[in-house]
């Protein structure tokens, strides 16, 4: 059997152990929030893009330079390793007031006990005062000042997060340019542009003058920060043992060089990514910034180092390992749902630490993309691809997430390590199909060359790496209704009323028993979906105006292609491509429900519409036999039944086709994806559905079939999913297959997994991930979580530690996909 399990070096093991130790001793990143608060307080008059650049410069100049004795790489988002980062300007006052404004006793019980995320008395006091400052000045306030009336009336939300689901900054930053070109060159370019504008300033280019000044300031900042680290290394070297001193001096020389200049070797290339990531994190409003194609541009540096004898292969592998541990140190609080969860947790006596992992905020939704194609369409794999994959395999870490692009040129060995790694790490890497994604990107207007260089960010979303700014992706919650497509179906069934809340919808329509044909029912669904997408697109455009007005992202703009060229920040539409994602969800719940109505009430007429309606409105009370009959008789999605699979494809096609055509902010594109992270939670807000689901029960996960009705095993399962119009689902989507351990054991079985993936991809699938676990293992992990800290499972777009999942998510996970052979 193949064995990729070469032990990591002692030094790497020590770093990994340290990380586990720090996980029990986390600190909140107060430093960054103090610097931005004080800078904004003193510079309220400054134009937003200059104010942000000014703050970033100040952060680079004033932040603590933290260098630990065992560091191979440098840089964290805050003064402590694995600091828990949050952005106070992102409507953070609610949780700060609830948690820190509580009684001393309760505050200490949650924030100053072993195992909590530590906040000192001084920090508590400061953050409470800072929250007062941000009241009326934060991003939410800008939103309140410009959103249209229906945002407040119809959506009934006061927080922009309720609609967007996420702030902008779900993207693949241009790390490649930072590594290969450097900030010095960008700074020079900006100065030249400024000179041109000075010669001929017009109403059209005056805003660019401000932008370029902000670029220069930001470049100055990050170069300064690197030099401060250089000085820090030298200080440490003066008191270190000779071997470490030599290493620190070498690091110092590199830090003096990098950020301003391009990387000369692998260490410098990696360090540039890490420093730049720190800067982007400090800038705020970002989540899931994802380094794409790192193997592509770090590979030549690695191979040079090895060829020149500067690095041994083991040394290179150690750097890859160290990179993975370091970049996974980024922890960012996910803004909206997390605020509420934190408040809730605090009320029930839990600490923020208790939420780590349960909420997927570790690694900040970051995702690394490996492999793919060069601009000429040939495969792009090298020694770095292999080494980074091996780092994941050896280190068994769940974050950041990992995507492996595959195509006809993907080497056998990369497939082998990829599958071995995925087996071990619960679905990491996910496999992404170049043959579908590249044409889908071209379809949305990306050039073929740029499409070939796509990266994946967040969970599954492809973008032109380093060239596309994106504001995505409100998972299944368009129009503020967390059921998404299911909500539209609910409207059609219950006559524009949500039985859960009693609230009216927006488009009056018939009740289920009033439709005269299945076609009429489908047409109503179509009308509801389109109406909601229209409103959603309008809200998206207003939403992006919030950021255009006052919340630029200069850290991304300095490097992202198009911004320097156009003189515009990314939030002003400066990037070469701008894309906004919208996610569909609960494919099976919707398709199976429609199939039930069609089969029983129209085709066979064995159940009257009235009877089904009565059963549904009463949440199946007194209709259990009918419910059982539905569950056992109706052909459901996931079994390769063309009739219901076509309904599923029709639903997705309706949504994707229409959404892709709608106007988007900054003349960018609206892109449809198919992903859900919260099907268990979203189901709690949805009344009974015709597929036999009871009120409050889970929705079906993303595009996957409902596990309890899958009867024919994995081939039929993936074939049903392959019939969805993936080429239009250009914001990505997931299939999530769970194998029992027995069916993937051994090299021959691993080869069959590869065949399954390739067959699925040749049928049009866009992405594949799988997990391996047997029920017994998970049951025993529930009983003895301490013994299963390493058990990783894949949920939609991300992997999580099984023992960190809430109990009902664990139960749901166990119920899913038991595809025994």
């Amino acid at each position, binding site marked *: 059997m193949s064995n990729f399990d070469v032990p990591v070096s002692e030094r790497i093991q020590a770093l990994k152990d340290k990380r586990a130790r720090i996980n029990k001793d986390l600190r909140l990143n107060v430093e960054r929030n103090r610097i931005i608060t004080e800078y904004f307080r003193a510079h309220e008059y400054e134009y937003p893009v200059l104010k942000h650049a000014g703050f970033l410069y100040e952060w680079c100049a004033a932040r603590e330079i933290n260098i630990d004795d065992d560091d191979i790489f440098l840089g964290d988002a805050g003064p402590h390793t694995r600091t828990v980062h949050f952005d106070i300007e992102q409507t953070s006052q609610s949780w700060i007031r609830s948690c820190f404004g509580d009684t001393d006793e309760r505050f200490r019980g949650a924030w100053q006990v072993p195992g909590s995320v530590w906040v000192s008395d001084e920090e508590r006091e400061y953050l409470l005062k800072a929250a007062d400052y941000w009241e009326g000045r934060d991003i939410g306030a800008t939103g309140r000042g410009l959103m249209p009336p229906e945002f407040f009336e119809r959506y009934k939300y006061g927080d922009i997060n309720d609609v967007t689901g996420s702030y902008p900054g779900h993207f693949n930053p241009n790390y490649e340019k930072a590594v290969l070109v450097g900030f010095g060159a960008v700074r020079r370019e900006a100065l030249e542009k400024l000179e041109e504008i000075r010669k001929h300033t017009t109403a059209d280019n005056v805003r660019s003058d401000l932008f370029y000044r902000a670029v220069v300031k930001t470049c100055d900042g990050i170069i300064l920060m690197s030099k401060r680290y250089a000085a820090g290394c030298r200080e440490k070297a003066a008191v270190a043992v000779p071997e470490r001193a030599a290493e620190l001096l070498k690091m110092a020389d590199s830090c003096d060089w990098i950020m301003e200049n391009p990387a000369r070797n692998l260490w410098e290339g990696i360090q540039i990514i890490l420093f730049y990531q720190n800067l982007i994190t400090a800038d705020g409003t970002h989540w899931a910034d994802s380094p794409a194609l790192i193997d592509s541009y770090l590979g030549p540096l690695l191979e040079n180092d090895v060829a020149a004898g500067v690095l041994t292969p083991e040394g290179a592998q150690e750097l890859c390992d160290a990179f993975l541990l370091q970049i996974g140190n980024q922890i960012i609080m996910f803004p909206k749902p997390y605020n509420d969860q934190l408040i809730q947790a605090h009320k029930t006596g839990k600490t923020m630490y208790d939420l780590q992992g349960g909420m997927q905020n570790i690694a900040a939704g970051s995702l690394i993309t490996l492999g793919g194609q060069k601009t000429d369409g040939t495969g792009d794999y090298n020694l770095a691809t292999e080494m980074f994959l091996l780092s994941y395999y050896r280190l068994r870490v769940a974050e950041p997430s990992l995507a492996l692009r595959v195509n006809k040129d993907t080497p056998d060995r990369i497939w082998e390590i990829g599958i071995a790694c995925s087996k071990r790490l619960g679905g990491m890497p996910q496999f992404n199909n170049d043959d579908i994604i590249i044409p889908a990107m071209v379809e949305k207007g990306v050039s073929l060359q740029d499409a070939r260089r796509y990266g994946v960010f967040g969970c599954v979303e492809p973008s032109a790496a380093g060239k596309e700014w994106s504001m995505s992706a409100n998972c299944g919650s368009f129009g503020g209704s967390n059921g998404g497509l299911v909500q539209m179906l609910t409207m059609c069934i219950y006559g524009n009323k949500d039985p859960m809340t009693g609230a009216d919808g927006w488009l009056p329509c018939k009740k289920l028993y009033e439709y005269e044909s299945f076609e009429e029912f489908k047409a109503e669904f179509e009308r509801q979906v389109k109406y909601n997408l229209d409103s959603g697109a309008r809200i998206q455009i207003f939403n992006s105006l919030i950021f255009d007005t006052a919340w630029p992202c200069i850290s991304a703009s300095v490097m992202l292609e198009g911004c320097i060229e156009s003189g515009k920040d990314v939030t002003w539409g400066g990037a070469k491509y701008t894309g906004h994602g919208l996610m569909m969800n609960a494919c099976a719940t919707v398709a199976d429900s429609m199939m039930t109505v069609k089969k029983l009430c129209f085709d066979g007429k064995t159940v009257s519409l009235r009877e089904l309606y009565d059963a549904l409105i009463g949440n199946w009370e007194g209709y259990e036999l009918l419910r059982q009959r539905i569950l056992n008789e109706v052909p459901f999605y996931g079994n390769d039944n063309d009739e219901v699979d076509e309904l599923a494809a029709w639903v997705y096609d309706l949504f994707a086709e229409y959404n892709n055509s709608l106007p988007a902010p900054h003349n960018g594109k609206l892109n449809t994806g198919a992903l859900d992270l919260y099907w268990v939670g979203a189901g709690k807000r949805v009344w009974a559905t015709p597929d036999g689901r009871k009120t409050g029960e889970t929705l079906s996960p993303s595009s996957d079939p409902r596990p309890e009705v899958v009867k024919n095993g994995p081939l039929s399962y993936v074939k049903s999913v392959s019939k969805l119009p993936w080429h239009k689902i250009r914001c990505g989507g997931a299939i999530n297959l769970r194998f029992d351990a027995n069916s993937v054991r051994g090299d021959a*079985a691993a080869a069959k997994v590869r065949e399954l993936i390739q067959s699925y991809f040749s049928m049009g699938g866009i992405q594949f991930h799988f997990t391996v676990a047997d029920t017994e293992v998970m049951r025993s992990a529930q009983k003895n979580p301490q013994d299963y800290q390493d058990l990783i499972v894949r949920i939609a777009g991300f992997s999580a530690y099984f023992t960190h999942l809430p109990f009902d998510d664990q139960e749901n996970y166990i119920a899913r996909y038991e595809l025994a052979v």
Partner: protein
Amino acid sequence: MEYNNATGHIYDIQGYAVHDGPGIRTTVYTKGCPLRCLWCHSPESQCYEFELSCLPIKCLGTALCRNACIDACPEGAISADEPKAAADGSGMIQKAKIDRAKCTGCLKCTEVCFAGAVYPSGRDTTVSEVFDRVMKDAGFFKNGGGITVSGGEAMAQFDFTLNLVKRLKAAGIHICLDTTGYAPAEQFEAILPYIDLFLYDIKHMDSAKHRSFTGVGNEMILENARYLAGHGGALQIRVVVIPKLTGEETDLRKTAEFCASLGGAVKLVQLLPYHKTGRMKYDRLGLRYKLTNVEPPDDDFMLKTLEMFRSCGLNAQLH
């Protein structure tokens, strides 16, 4: 190549049957077997006729369906069991309880059970129906995959199996036949041209022991193996290793020597450590699992056995 639309009894069709031959395969499981191996992990495959299977976990209580199965049973074999707490916490329910002594296997109860708690252990089918179903998976067969016809003993429904494989062969599908080898020689002769690979069980070289473990002697099985090997058949031999039964070192050596004597026809020998996962299926059918005091062999022993097979010049692997 002529074939007809013969009828047959099957109990399952499974996609992604990764243990049943090369590549990605879909396996058709036929019903009925002339052998009664003590360790059989699919007791539902043994009998040609459909039997009553019962999955009590699915039963929602006889009150809910107004005694549907109880009333449907002409023999009075079904009654309401003692009240027990329902799994979903909805209160106390009385599940259906089957008196196997009274049950005649008429299966009338299975027609009225919406919950699928009682169901027949197989279904009637035709060559066309099976063909249409398995061909839906053809997109996955590119790298050496295909269809495996398994059992029970597929040769026991010879007409059905022969016509099915003829039809599949005409469509260019790679076919494995999973067999005990226990069928008349002329049947193997007839089916040989359509089978790409025989998955062939050799259970024991001692005919008396073979009879006591499986109910039949091994003469015909060994003879057929020799015939297939001598007439261009490709064989993948499967040997189940069961401590106390087939797992004696000397017995296994004889098996290895027999395999080696078949020459190049043997492409692979798979050694299968005995496992117990079939036991719960016996309960569903109201049968008794007889191999209660046997444990799976340990890894060391399996590795030693593997070495021994390889030392006979065989391409062997653990499975």
